[in-house]
């Protein structure tokens, strides 16, 4: 059975890597903490997509299809979808989620690859909470908007984009 709790797992890892006392933090741990905060949100989004489009109940869904949808997300596609979400009439909470996703992805890139940055304990704690808040926001979205957002993130074919443009332009009579 697929593991549907990776988001909480990555959040737990992000917290474990930040020292709770006055101990001097290890740079590599702070970097991995920030990276894990991003991955927690990435997995939360993957789960939302798979649950929304295939089903949330393991015994009443095709689990192979659930995994296919879950793995259907990639970082670049999510980035584009979140960046362009502002052009769609999603609830404000989803716009805020999309922006937070992008900020966390940027922080993850710096933490993973940039030798010039020196993350601090305060920054690691900041991004853990930003990830928690993002996941809570995603969990609070209603069923219809969850399905719409999952579709927006995953389905990027030419036909889907033409359909979106026609709806946006108000030209839906031909559909």
């Amino acid at each position, binding site marked *: 059975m697929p593991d549907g709790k990776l988001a909480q797992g990555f959040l737990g890892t992000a917290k474990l890597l930040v020292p709770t006392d006055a101990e001097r933090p290890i740079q590599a741990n702070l970097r991995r903490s920030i990276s894990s905060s991003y991955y927690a949100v990435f997995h939360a989004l993957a789960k939302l997509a798979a649950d929304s489009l295939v089903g949330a109940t393991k015994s009443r869904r095709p689990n192979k299809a659930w995994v296919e949808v879950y793995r259907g997300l990639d970082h670049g596609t999510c980035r584009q979808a979140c960046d362009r979400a502002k052009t769609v009439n999603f609830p404000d909470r989803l716009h805020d989620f999309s922006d937070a996703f992008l900020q966390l992805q940027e922080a993850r890139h710096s933490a993973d690859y940039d030798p010039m940055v020196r993350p601090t304990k*305060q920054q690691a704690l900041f991004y853990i909470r930003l990830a928690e808040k*993002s996941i809570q926001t995603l969990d609070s979205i209603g069923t219809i908007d969850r399905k719409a957002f999952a579709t927006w993130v995953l389905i990027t074919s030419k036909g889907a984009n033409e359909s979106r443009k026609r709806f946006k332009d108000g030209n839906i009579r031909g559909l």
Partner: protein
Amino acid sequence: MDIDEELKRRLQALIADRLGHDLSADITIESIEVSEAAKEIHIAVRIVTEARPEELADRYFGLTGKVRETLGDKWNRFFPVITPNIGHSVNA
């Protein structure tokens, strides 16, 4: 393309108000750099406060949209990457 001084002032006011409202905090935009290749505006924000980083994160959630609004149509193809640099204030 550069961010003009008036727009910098409005961004400074917005970010300080959003993150620092009701807090004892010194919030300053350290730098703003435009990357035309990446279509990003990198905003580094220095935050000196006794507030917990978690509280700042709660206030930060939703800030990006407000910054986009302040940036306006001219910059609507650029994503504002807002990086907090958090330090503790020193009591006298």
